């Protein structure tokens, strides 16, 4: 983590050889002449946790779907591990906003199905055994034989998390995974994900509009301006030390400046940002990098 406080400019775009693990290069989504977002550039390093924060309607979910390979961008490319992404891959697991469990399978069946896709040669018994272990890692071993309809919202999302982590993907993509949950459950699952990500040194990208969630989990927080024509307006480096938990987070020095900085962006600057008259030093490829907590 850098130590220089305040605002500084990033280095010019790095040559292809030094590309981060995942490199988003000028992607856009357009409906006719209207761009929801365009000229969006950012990278995700190996083992890094990047959060994208912005208001509804700026195309956050679309960006995640493009990273997952579920949708092609209308412009620009996505390069992961040196290869252009043209479709979904088991190397990029997705935790969906609405758990997306198959209701005719049990919790273990859902995880086992994912494992059987990952490991086509595994026997049914081996998939089921591994599914049981994956569920135990999210403390759901007791609910393995239940159908999703018999699980609470938090438990369903836990199964979704277990399914994604069981794949041992190179990158984890999370689309507001806790937004449908009550505050208590959300907090517990945030700690759970933080633990799993730390255990696996998991490269991760998460979309959220919960500032505290971003501060808890992310190494870097991308702030997105409002659509249409949304851009990455600023990159916030989260210098708060790890391990972070919800219990100690708000006691950490630097937490409040960091939180205020992001909230200020969401409340005022996100709507004022204009890519045609950008703030000094802003370019689409090198948005300003700030370290409010340092």
């Amino acid at each position, binding site marked *: 983590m850098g130590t220089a406080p305040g605002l500084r400019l990033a280095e010019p775009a790095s040559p292809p050889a030094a590309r981060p693990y995942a490199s988003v290069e000028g992607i856009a989504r357009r409906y006719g002449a209207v761009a929801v977002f365009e000229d969006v550039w950012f990278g995700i390093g190996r083992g890094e946790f990047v959060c994208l924060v912005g208001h509804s309607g700026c195309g956050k979910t679309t960006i995640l779907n493009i990273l997952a390979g579920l949708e092609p961008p209308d412009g620009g490319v996505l390069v992961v591990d040196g290869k252009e992404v043209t479709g979904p*891959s088991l190397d990029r*697991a*997705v935790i969906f906003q609405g758990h997306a469990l*198959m209701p*005719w399978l049990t919790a273990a069946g859902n995880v086992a199905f994912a494992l059987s*896709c990952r490991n086509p040669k595994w026997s049914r018994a081996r998939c089921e055994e591994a599914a049981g272990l994956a569920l135990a890692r999210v403390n759901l071993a007791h609910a393995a034989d239940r*159908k999703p309809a018999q699980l609470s919202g938090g438990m369903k999302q836990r199964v979704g998390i277990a399914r994604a982590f069981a794949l041992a993907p190179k990158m984890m993509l999370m689309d507001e995974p806790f937004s449908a949950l009550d505050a208590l459950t959300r907090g517990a699952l945030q700690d759970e994900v933080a633990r799993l990500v730390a255990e696996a040194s998991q490269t991760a990208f998460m979309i959220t509009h919960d500032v505290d969630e971003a501060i808890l989990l992310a190494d870097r927080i991308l702030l997105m301006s409002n659509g249409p024509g949304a851009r990455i307006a600023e990159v916030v480096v989260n210098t708060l030390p790890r391990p972070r938990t919800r219990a100690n987070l708000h006691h950490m020095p630097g937490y409040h400046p960091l939180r205020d900085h992001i909230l200020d962006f969401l409340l005022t600057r996100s709507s004022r940002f204009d890519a045609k008259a950008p703030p000094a030093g802003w370019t689409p490829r090198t948005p300003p990098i700030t370290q409010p907590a340092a």
Partner: protein
Amino acid sequence: MGRPVPGWKSALLSLVLLALFLGAWELAVRPAGGGTAVVDPEYAALLGQAAQQGNATPMPGPGEVARRLWELLRDPFYVRGSNDQGIGIQLAHSIGRVAMGFGLACLVAIPLGFLIGMSPLLYGALNPFIQVLRPVSPLAWMPLALYSIKDSSISAIFVIFICSIWPMLLNTAFGVAGVRKEWLNVARTLEAGGWRTAIRVILPAAAPTILTGMRISLGIAWLVIVAAEMLVGGTGIGYWLWNQWNNLSIADIIIAILLIGVVGLVLDRLLGIAARAVSYAE
């Protein structure tokens, strides 16, 4: 609907209604005039044996129907020549034809419905044909089938096939087209591939809708087989019913109606069990 009613109450009411109905039936067919039957000579000539035995009316009472039912069910599988076979044999013929026609319709409708459901292009292209052919009465196909197939039994199977196919085709297409996008996205991120996605995701997701279509189809098939067998003759409960009409054995006709109802109920219940096995709660 109000408060739930305990099952035994409705069962009791069913029994009371049945008793009332049987009583009214018995009263209605009881010969008037205190037992001494007055037989109209013309009527006697028409009825022959039955009138001479003193039956004032050809309409049997419930007791007589029950006796006849017992007679038929005691030996349901006898064969005494092509025109005199047990009621069980007749029902088996009808069920066999329905099974053949319905089975063939399943083999065509479910895969085709899958394709139509997955391809909006194919759906648009085939929809006009389906919409025109679907409302055609199955029996309207019968002359064409008899002419081109030249075999009455196979024609009956064809008619069952053609009437079973539409509800299954449309329901399969509807179920497949309605599979939630997020489940398909899960399959895509798992790189499940087309075949695996079809079998492990789309089929179980659409199965309840498909089963509903199969249930409707089977109901129609059982309705149609009786009429078709009346036309083509030979064997089957429909033919037997028509035969008993020609013999003017009203008791047998009533029994045929009862048995057709019971078999139809059993067939529907069987698919109901299958439907429950594939249903899921979201």
